[in-house]
């Protein structure tokens, strides 16, 4: 059965580039693209929601 991937929405207007989501993602799904975070490897996402919980800027939304 194919794995159902979550969607990770990053609101670039809100992202201040603090790196918290990138550093604390346990499976390294995110990376910095210039000043803002972006999704690098969506397949690795385990939907732990830690990036959404720790984003101080309301910039990440994970929908499982």
């Amino acid at each position: 059965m194919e794995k159902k991937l979550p969607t990770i929405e990053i609101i670039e207007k809100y992202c201040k580039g603090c790196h918290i989501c990138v550093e604390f993602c346990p499976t390294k799904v995110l990376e910095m693209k210039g000043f803002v975070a972006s999704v690098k490897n969506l397949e690795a996402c385990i939907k732990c929601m830690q990036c959404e919980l720790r984003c101080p800027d309301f910039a990440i939304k994970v929908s499982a």
Partner: protein
Amino acid sequence: MAFDYDKYIRPGKLPHIWCPGCGHGIVMKGMIRAIDTLGLDKNNTAIVSGIGCASRLPGYMDFCTLHTAHGRAAAFATGVKMAKPEMNVILVGGDGDGTAIGGNHFIHACRRNIDMTYIIMNNNIYGMTGGQFSPCTPTGAKASTTPYGNPDPAFDVAKLAIGAGATFVARGTAYHATQIDKLIVEAIQHKGFSVVEILDDCPTTYGRRNKFKSVIEMMNRLKEIAVPIKAAEKMSAEQLEGKVITGVLYKEERPHYTGEYAKVIARAQK
């Protein structure tokens, strides 16, 4: 589904003013999730703050909000609670606002045991006014007014609250995001004055002066120093050196102020 924070935020207010990596946003999110869990009515919930970075929080929240004078959040909130005892009153503020300028209001709100919840975001410094040291700045730490290191010992906000008579005291950190809303839910449910201290990071005015290379280093420090209360019970004093205990630290049931005051009114009207 992703949690819908926008439901509780005033439209057009984001992005907020806090610096990149500031933990206040994480605490605000935790607070919103706690309010959502409890299903508090927007029209029956007042969020009160003083002055400071953390005190900007009510401006973003779509509730009855009050942004008051420096350190006076507890005083104004007491007025709100006395006028409308059925209202849920939540206070937010920083360590400088709550324990220095508003120190007296804070301890007396604890003593009176007014049914309110005080969320103190402790980032060890006065961020907004330019990085002056606060009563929560650790000994030896550098601030704009202590360039050679702070000679003062720091306040333990939780111990101060317990000593002053608060009936619910808890502590969390901005790193442990999932714990924040649980602590706030318990604090709001508690009948009496509840204090939730959230250890926070200020990368701009504290981190840079105190050799933290990045926000991540500050977050990792919070991760390292926090010890859950259950684990701390099994640890020796040496092992707990330099650590802070997190979780619900104190809880007791005691008559709360508005209830007692209603009795005074009833006696006077006899």
